[in-house]
C-alpha cells in the first residue's frame, strides 16, 4: 500500500512540536480553571477522594512461618463474631462478621437500595445504618440490626424510630467532608424525600454542619445522656467523626460517653459535596485509624469502647489490616454501591443485562468514571429518586450481590488471619504488619518492610 505523501514542512511534523505539559497546570487543572471561569460555582460531586493517598495497600502481612505457627486455611476455625457497645448499653450489638454497612441516606439512595442493604445485612448477620433523612419503613423491616443516625439536620428524626433502632449513631462529621453539612440537590428532593425532611420539593437542600442543641464535648455528654434516658439505656451510642484531629476527637468522644467510636477517613464517600472538600479536607483512613487506636490505648479504653473504621475499605485485605491496626469492625459504603452495580456499563432488568452507556453519556460521564450521584440520574438506578431509573435495581438481586461481596471479604479476612496463626480475626495485631512505603510506615507506625525502622518512633 502506498503511504500518503506527507508534504507538510518539516517544522509542522508533530515530532517538532513543543508539547511539554505543565505539572502545575496540567489538563486536569486547566479543566478546573475553565469550568470555574465559565460557571462561577464550585463543582459538587459524589463518591470519595480520587487522588492517591497512603492506604492499606501500602501494608503487607507477615504470616506464619518458622517463628509463628499458621492455622490450616480451610479446616481450622477462625471466629468473626463482633460485639459493639459493651461500655454502657444494656443491649450491645452482636454481629456475625466485623464488616458493616455504612450510613447512607434515603434520599441519596432509593428506597429499593435501602431495602437491598437491609436484606443483605440481615442475611450476613451484620448491621446497616440510616442516614441524613430518617428511617424508612423498607430498611427497618428488612434489617435485623439497624443503626439510627442522629445528625445535625435532624431530618425525619423522631422518638418512635429512635426506639425502633438497635443502636444510635451521633454523627459529628463524615470523612468526605469533615466540618461540612450534607447536600442533596433539588432533582433528588421528590415528594417522599421532601416529606420526610419537612422541606419544600425540589430545593437544593443543605444540611447543617453543627448540631442544633449542643456544641462542645461537655454538651455532647449531656446529649448522649438524654438519648440514653429516652431509650432506657438499652441501645449502644456510637459517635461518628470525620478524620481530622482524630487523636483529640476520639478522646473527646470517649469523654462524652460513647460506647462506640466510628472514624471515617478522607477516602469515605458522599452523595454530594464540593470537590474541594472531598480531595483536600481530612486525613487518610490509615493515619486516622492509628491515631484513634493510640487515643483509646492512652485512655485504657481498648476493648471497652469499640472502634469502627471506614473510608475506602474495599477488600478483605483492607478489613484484615484495619483489624490488625486496632479496629473492632469496619464500615463500607462505596464498595457496597459498587457491588450493586455502581459504574457498571449495564444494569440487570427483566432477566437480562441492558446497556447503560447512553445514560452515562447523557450526564457527561462514562462507566468507570462516574461520580454523578449528585445528579440523581444514576444510570444503574442506585443513587436516584427517579421512578423509572430506580427500577433498574432489583432489591433481591442487589441483596445477593451485596451478600456475595461481603462473604468474599470475610473469607479473605479469615484466610489472612489463619495464615497469621489467629483463630479469631480480632486477634490480628499491629505486629503482623509491615509497610511498603515510608509514608505508610510513619502513618500506621509499623516498620518499613525488611527493617526495624518506624519513622518518628525509632531511628530518625
Amino acid at each position, binding site marked *: 500500500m502506498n503511504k500518503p505523501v506527507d508534504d507538510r514542512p518539516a517544522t509542522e511534523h508533530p515530532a517538532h512540536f513543543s508539547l511539554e505539559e505543565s505539572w502545575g497546570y496540567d489538563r486536569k487543572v486547566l479543566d478546573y480553571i475553565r469550568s470555574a471561569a465559565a460557571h462561577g460555582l464550585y463543582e459538587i460531586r459524589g463518591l470519595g477522594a480520587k487522588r492517591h493517598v497512603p492506604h492499606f495497600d501500602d501494608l503487607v502481612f507477615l504470616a506464619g512461618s518458622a517463628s509463628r505457627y499458621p492455622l490450616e486455611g480451610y479446616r481450622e476455625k477462625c471466629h468473626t463474631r463482633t460485639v459493639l457497645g459493651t461500655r454502657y448499653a444494656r443491649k450491645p450489638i452482636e454481629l456475625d462478621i466485623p464488616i458493616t454497612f455504612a450510613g447512607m441516606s434515603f434520599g441519596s439512595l432509593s428506597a429499593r437500595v435501602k431495602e437491598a442493604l437491609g436484606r443483605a445485612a440481615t442475611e450476613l448477620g451484620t448491621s446497616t445504618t440510616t442516614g441524613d433523612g430518617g428511617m424508612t419503613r423498607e430498611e427497618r423491616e428488612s434489617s435485623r440490626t439497624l443503626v439510627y443516625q442522629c445528625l445535625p439536620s435532624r431530618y425525619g428524626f423522631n422518638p418512635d424510630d429512635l426506639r425502633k433502632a438497635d443502636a444510635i449513631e451521633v454523627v459529628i462529621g463524615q470523612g468526605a467532608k469533615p466540618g461540612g453539612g450534607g447536600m442533596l440537590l433539588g432533582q433528588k428532593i421528590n415528594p417522599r424525600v421532601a416529606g420526610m425532611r419537612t422541606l419544600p420539593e425540589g430545593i437544593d437542600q443543605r444540611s447543617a454542619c453543627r448540631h442544633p*442543641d449542643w456544641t462542645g464535648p461537655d454538651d455532647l455528654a449531656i446529649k448522649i445522656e438524654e438519648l440514653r434516658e429516652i431509650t432506657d439505656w438499652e441501645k449502644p451510642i456510637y459517635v461518628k467523626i470525620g478524620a481530622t484531629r482524630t487523636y483529640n476527637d476520639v478522646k473527646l468522644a470517649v469523654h462524652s460517653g460513647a460506647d462506640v467510636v466510628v472514624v471515617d477517613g478522607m477516602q469515605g464517600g458522599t452523595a454530594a459535596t464540593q470537590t474541594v472538600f472531598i480531595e483536600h479536607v481530612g486525613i487518610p483512613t490509615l493515619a486516622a485509624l492509628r491515631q484513634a487506636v493510640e487515643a483509646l490505648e492512652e485512655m485504657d479504653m481498648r476493648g471497652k469502647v469499640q472502634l469502627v473504621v471506614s473510608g475506602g475499605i474495599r477488600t478483605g485485605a483492607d478489613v484484615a489490616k484495619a483489624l490488625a491496626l486496632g479496629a473492632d469492625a469496619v464500615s463500607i459504603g462505596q464498595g457496597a454501591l459498587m457491588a450493586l452495580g455502581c459504574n457498571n456499563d449495564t444494569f440487570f432488568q427483566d432477566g437480562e443485562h441492558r446497556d447503560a452507556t447512553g445514560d452515562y453519556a447523557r450526564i457527561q460521564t462514562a462507566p468507570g468514571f462516574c461520580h454523578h450521584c449528585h445528579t440523581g440520574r444514576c444510570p444503574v438506578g442506585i443513587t436516584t429518586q427517579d421512578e423509572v431509573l430506580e427500577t433498574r435495581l432489583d432489591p433481591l438481586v442487589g441483596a445477593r450481590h451485596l451478600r456475595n461481596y461481603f462473604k468474599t471479604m470475610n473469607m479473605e479476612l479469615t484466610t489472612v488471619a489463619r495464615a497469621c496463626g489467629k483463630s479469631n480475626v480480632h486477634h490480628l495485631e499491629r505486629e503482623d504488619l509491615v509497610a511498603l512505603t515510608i509514608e505508610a510506615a510513619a502513618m500506621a507506625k509499623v516498620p518499613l518492610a525488611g527493617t526495624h525502622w518506624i519513622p518518628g518512633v525509632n531511628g530518625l
Partner: protein
Amino acid sequence: MERVAARAAANGELTFDLGQRTVRDLNQFLHHDLPDSGVRHVEVLHPGGRHAIAAGVNHPVDIDVRGHGGYYLAGMNKFATVTVHGNVGWGVAENMMSGVVRVKGFASESAGASGHGGTLIIEGDASLRCGISMKGIDIVVGGSIGNYSAFMAQAGHLLVCGDAGHALGDSLYEAVIYVRGRIRSLGADARIEEMTDVDHAKVRELLDRAGFAGEPEEFKRVASARQLYHWNADANQEY
C-alpha cells in the same frame, strides 16, 4: 416503683422527689409504668437542674416540675403537657413531636430545637438559637430571644412578644416568625413581610394558646425570601 404507682392510681396523682430518686427512675416510670398506672398528673419535686427530666415521654399526662431543670427537659416529648415552675437549660423540648411544654421562667440556648410539633411556651426570655432547625413546632416566647434564633427553621411558628437578637431567621425555609419588639438584625435570606389576615389570625391564636396579652397588629412577620433555595453563582458569597 409498681407499689408507688398502684398507690397513686387511686387519685391519679403521683409525686416524684428527685431529692430522693434519680432521673432514670422518673423516666423509666414515665416510659413504662405510667400508661397502665392510672396516673394522670405527676409532680416532680427538687429537680435541682438535673438533665433530661421527663425526656421521651410518649403518653398524655400532666407533669409539673417544681424548680429549675437542666438540659433537654421534656426532650422529644409526645402527648404530655409539661410545666416547669422555674428556668431550664439548653434544648428544652428539643425535637418535640406533640403536647405542650410551658416554662414559667427563662430558657437557655436552643429552646425547641428541631421540634416537629406541639407547643413550647416560654414565659420569660429564651437565649441563643431559640427554634433552631424547627420542623413544625409552635414556639411562643413572652420575653425576648437571643441571637441566631430560628436558624434554618423549616416549618412551624416562632412568636416573640419582646425583642429578637442578631441574625434572626438565618437561612430560613418555610417557618414563619412574628416579633413584637425590635429585631437587631435579620439573617441571610430572612425578610420582613406584610402581615396578612392569615397572619393576624395565627398570632391571635398563638397568643391565646399561650395565655399572653397582645394584639396581632403589634407584630411583624419575618419569613424566607427563598433566594437560597437553589445554588446561585451570583449570590453574595459572604452569606
